[in-house]
């Protein structure tokens, strides 16, 4: 009986150790972007030459006088003109080396996983960046039990100027929204343990009067996007893995009111 109890305790301890040791590698966010371009080439060469000569002769004596004049002029011109126009388009694949720092930070804070470093994908111009199984097999995530594979769905910069009603000032909003899809993949069984899309949002709002010019802080916006994306990812992982214990103690925005929400105070 004692032996059984001991075995049970050992298995519990081992289980706890295994649960603690679950390691996760976070990939950089993969993206595919269509790059389109247009070119219009005009090649124009003009070569011209002109040549002129004139000679005058005059003779004067007691008996006679004579005068002659001769002139010549020649001009030569040559023009070459070439015009080419075309458009081109290709899809660029790669990994965004931004925005994942705070995801790792929030996962660490949640305490559910240990984070291991993933090898970056450095091959260029290939759709293989999405072939996560091949990358796992090639050993891009050493020591990881799970890989959090993220792809960029949309990255949207907006620069808006809106008048503030009732005043002569304007609200200049520079914002960035990033939507990315994530899959949490087991590196041994390739089972997807969680899948979701997460959003990161950041903005820099300045109140300006007519005529003044403001330069938005891109750094502040990118930092806010990264932080809010990290919080959203950690929250959704926690929700889908059944724990739901993740609590963000320090929300970056700090504002309890949502945009467009009306609060009506009672008597």
């Amino acid at each position, binding site marked *: 009986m004692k032996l059984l109890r001991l075995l049970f305790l050992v298995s519990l301890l081992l289980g706890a150790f295994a649960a603690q040791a679950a390691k996760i590698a976070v990939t950089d966010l993969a993206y595919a972007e269509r790059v389109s371009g247009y070119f219009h080439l005009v090649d124009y060469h003009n070569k011209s030459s002109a040549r002129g000569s004139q000679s005058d002769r005059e003779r004067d004596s007691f008996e006679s006088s004579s005068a002659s004049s001769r002139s010549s002029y020649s001009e030569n011109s040559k023009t070459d003109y070439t015009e080419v126009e075309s458009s081109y388009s290709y899809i660029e694949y790669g990994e965004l080396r931004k925005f994942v720092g705070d995801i790792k930070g929030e996962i660490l804070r949640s305490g559910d996983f240990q984070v291991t470093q993933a090898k970056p994908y450095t091959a260029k111009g290939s759709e293989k960046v999405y072939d996560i199984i091949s990358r796992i097999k090639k050993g891009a995530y050493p020591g990881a039990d799970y890989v959090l594979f993220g792809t960029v769905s949309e990255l949207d910069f907006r620069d808006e100027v809106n008048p503030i009603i009732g005043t002569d000032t304007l609200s200049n909003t520079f914002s960035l929204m990033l939507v990315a899809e994530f899959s949490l993949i087991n590196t041994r069984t390739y089972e997807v343990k969680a899948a979701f899309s997460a959003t990161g949002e950041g903005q820099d709002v300045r109140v300006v009067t007519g005529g003044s010019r403001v330069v938005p802080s891109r750094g502040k916006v990118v930092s806010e996007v990264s932080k809010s994306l990290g919080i959203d990812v950690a929250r959704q992982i926690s929700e889908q893995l059944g724990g739901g214990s993740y609590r963000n103690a320090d929300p970056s925005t700090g504002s309890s009111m949502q945009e467009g929400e009306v609060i009506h105070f009672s*008597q």
Partner: protein
Amino acid sequence: MPSFKSIPLAIALLLLSACASHKPPPRPGSINAKVEQLSEMSYLQVTDLRALKRNHLLTVQAEINNPDSDNRQLYYRFKWMDTNGFVVGNEEAWKPVLVYAYQKQTITAVAPSPQVTDFRLVVQSPDNTGQLP
């Protein structure tokens, strides 16, 4: 001896007066929690108050009611605060509004910064009672 008998009565009176001078704090989410009156207004009342976040800036609208048959003068200004309760920006100037007899006057204001998450509407009138609200 009669002085000893009057002690409980005096204590009771003191307690009563203390209760009378200390009104309960305003309910959170009520108009009174957001309006600061510099002594109680005799005639004017803030009858409606609402806030909205528009373009990341807090916008506040208040309705002032004058149920009296005479025109009444009102002075107001807003105090803007961030999430930690610190005042944002400098103190505003008092703004005068004449509220006509039986009129409901609407005043609106926009916060000076997106950091603003809370506000107080400070109101005073020459016809104030001179007593605490």
